């Protein structure tokens, strides 16, 4: 009997030894890969596409909210598709830190910054035999790293009137410093541009960054070598998987935001402006109120301009307005002519600002212009930036106490 018991127990022990092998012998995942599996030259295009897709998400989502915070579009309960009352916080500039929309866009900005920087880190750790692929990877890593920082500096803020960003749980990085970091990235992107058109595009981005930073001289310098008439715009691309936010929140997909009524007045005053202010009439929930719905982005795959030669010309016009008014007027009229709109006879700052809001309708410029030109439309103390989310504030002690540990932003590589 004891022998039988002993044999049985021995058998059990053999099974026990096999436990470890048993649990490790599982089928691999089919839809996910580990980070180090991407450390290969053959994966670089896959990584670049990922950064670009992330860019499309963040750019569209952020500028929708930025335009909502501006006076360009508005949210109203009577708008036929208005369903998210949290947009009220955006509309009125009384934004809670846990506003779910702001939480999401603050996350995607960080994800874009991380993925762009990580692309460069990875590139330095692998051996790349194709120099063109290495250049393209560097260019995109720097370009989108710069765009991420530009988005922070332009659209986010720690306090209602204090813009800036944050990286890797650092202290608050004010807009001016964040723009510097964006410029560093853009300068590297410029160095690794693939052709002249790409160089002009990056130059325009640099010019705009300097312009918003308040450095007119450098802005002018780079704008002069920026995008030229005939150059295609640099755009965020969309499809039915990552789609245009304006279509789904402020357009034919769902209309929660309506264009300010002055845009219909612009068209009434000059019907040719309808070529660039693409709005259509709808009726509110009360059955009587007229609202204007944009159809600049008429489909969910409509691309959004990030920078265009028209915006470059507008920047140059602004920068030359005092020093070379005739040239400035000519540039404005070139932009107008590109839509078949007749020329202006005179140009002053008011007209220039109006040209900017017409030309750059729903491209994220209006919020910055309101701040730059002292046109803030909401009361004192309201948010002029999208606030850092509660998630960042709760998890990053350096925001409230910059002396708590290593709070300096990571050095740029």
């Amino acid at each position: 009997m004891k022998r039988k018991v002993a044999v049985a127990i021995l058998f059990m022990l053999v099974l026990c030894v096999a436990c470890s092998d048993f649990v490790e012998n599982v089928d691999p995942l089919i839809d996910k890969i580990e980070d180090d599996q991407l450390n290969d030259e053959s994966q670089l295009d896959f990584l670049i596409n990922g950064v670009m897709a992330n860019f499309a998400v963040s750019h569209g989502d952020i500028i929708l909210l930025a335009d909502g915070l501006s006076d360009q579009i508005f949210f109203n309960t009577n708008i036929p598709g208005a369903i998210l009352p949290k947009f009220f916080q955006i509309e009125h500039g009384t934004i809670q830190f846990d506003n779910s929309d702001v939480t999401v866009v603050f996350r995607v900005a960080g994800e874009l910054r991380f993925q762009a920087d990580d692309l460069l880190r990875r590139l330095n750790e692998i051996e790349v035999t194709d120099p063109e692929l290495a250049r393209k990877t560097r260019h995109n890593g720097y370009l989108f790293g710069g765009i991420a920082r530009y988005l922070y500096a332009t659209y986010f803020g720690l306090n209602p009137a204090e813009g800036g960003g944050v990286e890797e749980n650092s202290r608050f990085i004010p807009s001016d410093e964040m723009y510097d970091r964006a410029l560093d990235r853009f300068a590297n992107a410029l160095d690794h541009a693939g052709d002249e058109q790409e160089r002009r595009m990056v130059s325009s981005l640099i010019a705009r960054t300097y312009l918003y930073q308040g450095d007119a001289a450098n802005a002018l310098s780079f704008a002069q070598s920026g995008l030229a008439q005939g150059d295609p715009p640099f755009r965020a691309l969309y499809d039915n998987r990552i789609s245009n936010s304006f279509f789904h929140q402020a357009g034919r997909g769902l209309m929660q935001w309506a264009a300010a009524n002055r845009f219909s007045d612009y068209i009434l005053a000059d019907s040719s402006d309808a070529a660039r202010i693409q709005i259509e009439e709808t009726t509110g929930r009360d059955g009587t109120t007229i609202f204007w719905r944009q159809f600049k982005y008429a489909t969910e795959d409509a691309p959004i301009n990030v920078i265009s030669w028209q915006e470059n010309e507008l920047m140059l016009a602004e920068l030359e307005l005092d020093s070379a008014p005739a040239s400035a007027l000519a540039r404005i009229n070139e932009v107008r002519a590109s839509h078949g709109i007749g020329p202006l006879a005179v140009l002053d700052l008011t007209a220039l600002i109006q040209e900017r809001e017409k030309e750059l309708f729903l491209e994220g410029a209006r919020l910055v212009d309101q701040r730059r030109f002292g046109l803030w439309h909401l009361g004192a103390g309201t948010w002029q930036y999208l606030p850092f989310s509660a998630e960042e504030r709760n998890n990053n002690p350096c925001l409230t106490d910059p002396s708590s540990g290593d709070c300096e932003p990571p050095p740029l590589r």
Partner: protein
Amino acid sequence: MLHTLFISFALLLIYDPSSATTTGSTAGQVIDARTTEPLTGVNVYLKGTSLGAASTSDGTFLIPNVPPGTYQMVASHVGFHTEEMTVRIAVGDVVNVNFSLQEDIYHSEEIVVVGIASKTSRAMAPVAVSRLSASEYTEKNTYQGLNELVNGKIAGVAVRSSSGNPGSGFRFMVRSGGGLNGDEQPVIYIDGVRINNDEVGPWGVGGQRISILADLNPEDIENIEVLKGPAGGASYGTNGSNGVVLITTKKGKITSESAAGINYKFTTGWNTQAEKYSTDDYLSADAANAIFRDGRIWQNSVSVAGGSNLLRYFVSLESREEEGITHNNQLNRKNFRTNLDVTPNEKLTFTVNLGYTLNDIQRPLNDFLIWGQLPNVLGFARPYVFLDSLSIYGFEDSNKSNRILASLSAEYAPFKNFAMRIGFGIDDHDLRGDQTFPVNLTYTGTNDLGARNADNVRRKQNTYNWDLRYTYNPLSDLEITSIAGAQFFDRRLDDTFIRVYGFETELVTNIGAAQELAFANEDFFHRREAGFFTQHALAFRDQYFLTLNLRRDYASVIGIDAPDIYYPGANFAWRFDKYPYFPGNFDLMKFRLAYGETGVLPDLLAGIPLLYRARSSAFGVGAFLSNIGNSEIEPERVKEFEVGFDAEFLRNWALEFTYYRQKAQNSIVASRNSPSTGRTASPVPFNIGEVKGWGVETQLQGTPIRSRNLQLGLALINNYQDNEVVDLGGAQPIFDNFGANVIKEGLAKHEFFLTPVLGAEFDADGLYSGPKLGDERVAFGNPVPNYTGSFSINLRVIKNLNFYLLTDWATGHKVMNQSNTFAYQLGNNPRFNTLVTQLGLNQTGLAPFSSPVEGVEPLTPGTAEYQAAAKEFARLDWRFLSNFVEPADFFKLRELSLSYSFKDWLPKLFSRNRAVKDLVITFSALNLWTATKYSGPDSEVNVFSARSLTRGHDLATLQHPRVYNLSFAFSL
């Protein structure tokens, strides 16, 4: 005819003509000693043999073909003390033996599971183990699912379903909830097979999902045993930290040729709205009440049970159709079960359990979805602003599952005191989730060309187990049972899903007929676990009981070495009633002490620092971060100490008391990185937590009156639990999606932790400028009750008329009425609108959708009336969730039934045909009445079903229905 066939079948199984002239037999009757009523279904057997029978409805039994000899004859029955007699049987004799059984109020002789491969009588159990004799309750009521069956009947356990949808997800609340991570749910076995306890519902409907346990037929369940924490469940190892629920389905009993049991039960009933919405709370209350209907219930179940010494069988069929209380809300379940026990000889037993389920559950749109039925009638004052009612009710959701739950086991005892057991089980669940947005109906944000979502998910889990058991007596008074064994689990999930849209016609809507593919994808995981265990149980003089156990577990967690971890356990019981000087009024007085450890595994991918997935966009297919892991992650370890006693006294009363303390260390807490890191694709798991929990559970039951015609049974359960998050390792508090429930040091898990509104602020002109807020968040209470309990009455009068009532309660908890936040901000609350008008806040950011109330005049800033209105308005400010946390204590009349057994009438009515042995007609009801201060219709619901971090949020969530049933149960 069917009855005749089964009797013939049973006769074939037990008849052995060759033995007729070489054996004797024994027959007799079993009665209740106190009432002298015959007892049905008593197991009568000859000890040490496989010979036995079950008593019939008149208490009689017959054991034929007994070889001559002297035997110990045993009669055992649930709820009665076992009796033994010595009988001597000679060839050709029919020995008459009668038993008179005494009630066992504590069920001390029931054999209960006290470890993974060990069972003992409750009288000797060294841990608090609860056993629910399910069939006792299914005789009194008709339950939709396990949640209704269990709730209020087991000390230390409450069950909450998250909505009134048939098949809704539900949550076991066991003691103080174990550790921090995991889903705080017990591990569940059915007939030895570990089953999937997930919530399913591949496509969202706003928040509610489906319990995979909704597939079970409560009528098939014989009993449910619950080991409530690591102290009792240590031998079950990983994932047993929130207890172990062991469900045993019914088995056949050895019957004489005339007693093959056929039971048929027909139930018809209806679900109805339990609580009406009031126009005091919602201007749209009439429209809200109009969406409800009386949902029909229609259930048929039939079972056949019987057997011989060689084969025992139980076969059942069930069909249940149930409509919920709103449209697009129903369950249609078909169940088939066959349980076989084959005993070819005294040393060997095979057991086969096979269950097959077809289930189709349809859910309405609700909760956190503006397309929902309730959101459209509780949001704006004008109903269906978000979505047209045709579109809402035109939407279809269907979740069709088919599930095989099967086990095969063999037990072999080659020699005395030694047994080995091997088992294999499978839980194979296929689910097809379909959603249809019909053509020509408009859904906000989409076109009107229709859309289809389709998902096929297969969850498959295999259980393999093996154990050896050897009992020996090194000393005359000492018995040791040593057990060693192993368990292996293999789990897979295969999921493919697709969404298409754009159909030319509603007549053809197959996937291929769509114009556009929105997306398609698949998901897969494979995980294995294994455990090796050993246990040694020492019993000294049947008075002192010591058990020691140790388990080593292994698991596949991708990315790091498979973790292996030891879980020890020890427990001790001491029978005071065995002392001669102990008061004779106590039939049982047992003190027990137990300690055990279990753990919770990290998620499968938790150990991998960064995982990427492919995502398609207009730029091409690119790498997207999908999971952020932690390579240092370890299983959470949960320790529990419990002490208590069990007593049976004054013949009619039993009391169980248990005090426990739990401590979880290395708790895995998933915390999202700061957005500035860019690594926010998923929360990151850390072993940062420590939690402690404690509580008391008591159960008092008694039968103070018991006679032939009158019986009164009472049961009182009282539970107290609390817990505290001791340490988060310096991590920031972890909030749910609403930023309301928190995991934070110094607070109980899931506490509402919010910024308080202290009053109103005014500007220099005396105008209301907003609420006065507290400087920091404070605790507002917890959605998990501190106190739960139940009280039940079983009353039998005029012999066969039974009345059963169950009340239960929960106190010391809060619920957030987010339906009110919704209604306030959308201008649907009359008081809110009045205040808005008085303060002149219409169409502002504070009251964006409120229209001026006719007849209400604006108040003058600076006046006392204005300031009072402002202060009241601040307390209703929908932007601050702290305004909506409410006391949710309740007392419910949960179950009631009235039934009459016609078993004494049937012989008079059908003197020639005794085919129908009993007919029981029962009227029963669930959720009859509630007393609560909570302002919503139901404080037991939760917006994001029953597994999320969000707890105790009522946001346009469907209330539980009041249920009425009328059933007719025939015994043939």
